[in-house]
């Protein structure tokens, strides 16, 4: 086939399938935090990428400590937990100082969070320097699995995949199987009614926003294994994150998952058969066309308006 042996084609298909799945988990991890903040709360959080970088810089900082205390092989798990906690706390603070004053003016959240993203970028730059940094990765995160001689499965890809699964399950259980999630969903569906039955909606808002930021922090920490960490790296993720959430149908978590999967597969296949940038263009075109036909996104929410 096209001058390649069946073996070669088979191997590439396996690796290509994996890279599609790997892209899927990257997009999912990127978008989950935003799906909660934008999808559930309706806050257009332009600083989403910067919250991811909070996590990434936490990982880098922890890696420096780990090198010092010779814990390089085990620190990464702690780094991810620390990234969650730190991003959660900063998110909590931001909600308290900034976002809660703007719930009635959703478009202003766009400007306010964009401003916040600039402030955060400059903070990273002033405290960690303008140059990109890299986290010292443990040996077990480097290199690839080789099920056969010619197939390489990147370990960091597998790691991101597992983490995406864990976070998605975590979000699912929180949102649909816990009282906290019930309160969030109640507040989203009908704020007045929720507060009438005794839910402290302000507190729910604060925790929801912080949770979204925390998840962004986790994904940021995870992405230090596959891409760069710099003051403006966060801005690389923001477009893709919004694309996944909007395409999936803003208020639906299932939609986010389905849309991440669809976009990842389309992009990965198109990029294989076309050039990389053309593949991306074609994917975006498809999304635009589908959104023109279904403005609500893939999974329209069934909220009464």
């Amino acid at each position, binding site marked *: 086939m096209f001058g390649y042996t069946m073996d070669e084609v088979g191997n590439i298909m396996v690796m290509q399938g994996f890279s599609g799945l790997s892209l899927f988990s990257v997009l999912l991890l990127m978008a989950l935090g935003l799906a909660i903040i934008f999808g559930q709360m309706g806050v257009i959080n332009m600083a989403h990428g910067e919250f991811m970088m909070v996590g990434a810089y936490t990982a880098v900082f922890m890696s420096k400590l780990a090198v010092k205390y010779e814990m390089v092989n085990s620190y990464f798990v702690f780094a991810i937990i620390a990234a969650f906690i730190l991003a959660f706390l900063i998110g909590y603070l931001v909600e308290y100082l900034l976002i809660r004053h703007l719930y009635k003016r959703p478009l202003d959240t766009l400007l306010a969070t964009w401003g916040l993203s600039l402030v955060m970028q*400059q903070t990273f730059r002033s405290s960690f320097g303008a140059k990109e*940094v890299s986290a010292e990765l443990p040996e077990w995160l480097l290199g*690839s699995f*080789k099920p056969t001689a010619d197939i390489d499965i*990147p370990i960091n890809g597998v790691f991101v995949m597992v983490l995406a699964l864990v976070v998605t399950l975590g979000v699912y259980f929180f949102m649909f199987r816990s009282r906290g999630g019930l309160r969030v969903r109640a507040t989203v569906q009908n704020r007045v009614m929720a507060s009438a039955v005794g839910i402290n909606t302000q507190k729910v808002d604060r925790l929801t926003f912080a949770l979204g930021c925390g998840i962004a922090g986790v994904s940021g920490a995870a992405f230090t294994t596959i891409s760069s960490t710099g003051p403006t790296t966060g801005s690389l993720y923001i477009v893709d994150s919004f694309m996944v959430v909007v395409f999936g149908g803003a208020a639906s978590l299932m939609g986010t998952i389905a849309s991440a999967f669809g976009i990842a597969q389309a992009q990965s296949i198109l990029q*294989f058969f076309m050039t990389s940038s053309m593949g991306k263009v074609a994917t975006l075109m498809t999304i635009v066309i589908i959104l023109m036909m279904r403005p609500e996104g893939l999974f329209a929410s069934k909220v009464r308006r």
Partner: protein
Amino acid sequence: MSSSDRRQFIKKASVLVGVSLALGLSMATGSASAADFPTAAVSTTGLAVTDKTVTVGILHSATGTMAISETGSIQAEKLAIAQINEMGGVLGRKIEVVQEDGASDWPTFAEKSKKLLESDKVAAVFGCWTSASRKAALPVFEKDNGLLFYPTFYEGLEQSKNVFYTGQEATQQILAGLDWITKEKKAKTFYLIGSDYIWPRTSMKIARKHIEQHLGGKVVGEEYVALGDTQFGSVINKIKLKKPDVIYAAVVGGSNVAWFKQLNAAGLNSKKQTMLTISVTEDEVLGIGGENLEGFYSAMKYFQTLKNPNNDKFVAEFKKAYGENAVIGDVTQAAYLGPWLWKAAVERAGSFDVDKVVVALPGYEMTTAPEGYVKVDANHHLLSKLRIGKWRKDGQADVVYESGLINPDPFPKGYQ
């Protein structure tokens, strides 16, 4: 005299000798006093020159995306200026600096150039990094007859009376590198990959022509990734399918880091794959991580590990100024040349007037550059050598090849 006294004495005496030697030298090298060069004579076009000072501008991005790359250039230019001032300045005048921030925004570069030239009246500007920022600022420099020293290696196809290019243009960086890797690795097939904008596209065009027409090789893939793209899975699989002898890469920014990390994770490390890149300097290695680069090659005119007295001194002083962990990449070194070349030109011209300085610089041979001997060509670019560095795990490169001096050729015939 006890032996310790004697030691003391010898020490003191040698310090004295050293100091007087230094004084003598500085007089001999003609750190001329300003009195020999009356202001009215050395500046006739209203530049910011007084009896004691001369003002120059530094125009780089200290904020925004490009701050990653441009910080090193700012540091190098300031170091050079500080050193020149220590030696007595230019024509007996201390250099004062007005620093402006281009903020990674190309129209801002034009606006700040205008400010530097029209209201600060600076005698020269050291600045710009991306081609886009230079292209934005160029009309301002040409209209106001300013003088720009531009440090980055770039795609060529430009030559202006008002600009000196201290980095390499594309053919200087590309041709000798391809020649070397073809000979050294017996390479026949090449996969070209770059970020999707003017510099990689122009460079790859030149590379492809050279591979196909002069080296008898074959280009089995040419690929451009969107700026800022961080997912390379599909591209890497394509490369695995094509099995090129050499990957020739010009990926930049955040994409560059993702590219190397994912390449390594997909099992394409230097043991299995030869790669020559024209977009990795010591600065980029910080973000990419030495372990992801180990064994791959970069083609640059300068590496921090170059062994020569000029460079030893430069590296030591750079680290003294900016910390032991500071690294010096190709562009940082090229930026360092800017103020020195300007000083030499002003002294040759005996004037700060741009028209006279511009005429005085071509033909100048610089022997104190950290990269070694360079000469300013009539086309305002530098004659320089190309080096191939092989990356080590610690983020430094071993220089494995050094070309002869290469003439700059910004408008290469047969490559456009």
